[in-house]
């Protein structure tokens, strides 16, 4: 009897410990804990309170330096490193979906408070650091009069730009600072309503195909199912003909794509649905399977049915793929880039992820750049903070990270669409072994084990 009681007490203690341990550690990684959906009268909300940086800068790991290499841009979103080290910046604001309900009018006003009020640039700006001193002294408009350009990719002599309504290309020769001719349209892209307007872009390693990420036309089908034709998917576009086929579907808002060096595989960061509670649904990083269905709108994180969708589709739910790695709910990942050893030993293998932060969580998550370490080509371990200080605990927000790009010579380029700045993060020069940069917030107890992080 007494033994049974002590066993019970022990079990209760263990359960208590486990439940204390859970909340933070299991938001990330391959097996996030998914709470029950919850939604009060109002969704969980916290709007950023914009403020200027002044003399401040984002916080980088110790030894790393941060510099603003361009300011006063027209809403920078994604960047591209050209072969000679020049940086192209896509600037603009798209969307403008009409308000359908009283809610849309009110939410539109509230959400706009947390974003920049500058005019959409609708252009590509080129930045050049000719002497390699880290100062980008030349700044030219490479091309303008574009329609909310976002995704960028260079294939040989062709520069591809994903506008919010079309994939276009410029011919490009290394060293060029301005486009010589207007863009040529490769193919139209779905742009009806354009609730999620950003069109992310990556090119296959052989350059034959372009992958275009197309976001859903609603949070969760509230604009009707017909509006979701050709939405929430990644297109594979034939660069030569402009013909396309759906490469992956049910992928709610694939805001950034990247090709993994070595394997040539397509990876994406994806923003998941809102208004199911502060810890639902995790935004994710995943290897994108050809022909894969990722659940939206019928289910999330595999087979978790979203009751807000009618009619339901159990067959589609059964076929839904679980993504590889949870980044946490409402972090709003908008950028992804594979690292190189030139970024320092702590960041040698893995991806950088730019997390914009969302209105739909209090306290907010995201508002930083993180690093997801990889081992054997798969995510292995909890996220490590790389660039923080975008938001104070009291809500003052100086920046919101979007696109991240790795300069192969050893620099991380981060676009900030609130302060309209491009940040450049560089590792310590000649990175001495003794001063290997320690990840600032890495030790979060038992993170996901490397083995369990490789579902394939």
């Amino acid at each position, binding site marked *: 009897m007494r033994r049974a009681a002590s066993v019970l007490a022990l079990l209760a203690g263990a359960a208590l410990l486990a439940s204390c341990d859970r909340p933070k550690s299991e938001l990330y990684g391959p097996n996030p804990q998914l709470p029950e959906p919850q939604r009060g009268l109002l969704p969980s909300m916290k709007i950023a309170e914009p403020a200027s940086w002044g003399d401040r800068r984002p916080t980088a790991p110790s030894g790393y330096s941060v510099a603003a290499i361009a300011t006063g841009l027209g809403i920078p979103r994604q960047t591209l490193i050209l072969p000679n080290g020049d940086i192209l910046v896509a600037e603009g604001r798209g969307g403008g979906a009409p308000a359908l*309900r009283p809610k849309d009018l009110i939410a539109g006003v509230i959400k706009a408070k947390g974003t920049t009020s500058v005019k959409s640039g609708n252009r590509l700006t080129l930045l050049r650091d000719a002497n390699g001193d880290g100062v980008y002294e030349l700044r030219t408009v490479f091309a303008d009069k574009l329609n909310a350009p976002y995704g960028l990719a260079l294939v040989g002599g062709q520069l591809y730009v994903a506008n919010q309504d079309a994939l276009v290309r410029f011919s490009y020769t290394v060293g060029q600072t301005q486009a010589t001719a207007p863009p040529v349209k490769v193919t139209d892209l779905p742009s009806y309503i354009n609730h999620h307007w950003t069109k992310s872009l990556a090119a296959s390693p052989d350059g034959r195909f372009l992958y275009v990420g197309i976001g859903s036309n609603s949070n969760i089908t509230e604009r009707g*199912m017909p509006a979701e034709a050709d939405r929430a998917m990644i297109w594979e576009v034939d660069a030569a003909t402009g013909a396309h086929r759906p490469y992956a579907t049910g992928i709610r808002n694939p805001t950034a794509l990247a090709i993994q060096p070595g394997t040539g595989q397509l990876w994406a960061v994806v923003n998941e649905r809102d208004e199911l509670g502060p810890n639902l649904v995790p935004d994710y990083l995943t290897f994108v399977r050809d022909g894969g269905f990722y659940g939206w709108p019928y289910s999330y994180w595999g087979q978790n049915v979203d009751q807000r969708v009618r009619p339901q589709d159990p067959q589609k739910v059964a076929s839904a793929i679980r993504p590889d790695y949870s980044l946490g709910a409402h972090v709003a990942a908008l950028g992804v880039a594979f690292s190189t050893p030139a970024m320092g030993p702590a960041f040698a293998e893995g991806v950088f992820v730019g997390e914009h932060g969302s209105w739909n969580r209090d306290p907010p998550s995201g508002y930083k750049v993180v690093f997801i370490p990889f081992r054997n080509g798969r995510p292995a371990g909890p996220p490590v903070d790389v660039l923080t200080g975008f938001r104070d605990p009291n809500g003052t927000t100086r920046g919101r990270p979007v696109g991240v790009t790795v300069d192969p010579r050893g620099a991380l380029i981060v676009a900030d669409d609130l302060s309209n700045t491009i940040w450049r993060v560089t590792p310590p020069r000649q990175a001495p072994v003794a001063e290997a940069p320690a990840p600032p917030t890495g030790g979060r107890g038992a993170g996901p084990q490397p083995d369990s992080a490789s579902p394939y």
Partner: protein
Amino acid sequence: MAFAHASDPASRVHPVDAVLLTCGVPLFLGGLLSDIAYARTYQIQWSNFAAWLIAGAMVFTGLALAWTLLQMIRSSFRDRRRLIVFLLLLATFALGLVNSFIHARDAWGSMPSGLVLSIIITLLAAAATWLGLSSIRLGVRP
């Protein structure tokens, strides 16, 4: 005030009473019918209609509430029937506000609670209107 002292009881229905008390009912009813249509068809436009109709009804209910309160203050709270009308309107407004938030949920998230509330609110609004427009003449049927 002329209407307060009129000798003909029928004329004591102030036009503002009539407009404010009657406008809410068809709007709430339209919201209810739209909710039913959405529940039967899953066509999202019905849900949008419901949200707007309820929002419109809330405007008139809010004005009716304020007007009734004003009248109560003027009559120094002696009119018990008006007090009941006021309480009915208050309940309609409070539940209508909840219903507006529920209708702000995306897609089927507004169901089934939105439909249930729409039924209750339509009945409350009808009761407030019935009592509000009939009470004034009560007991003076010619």
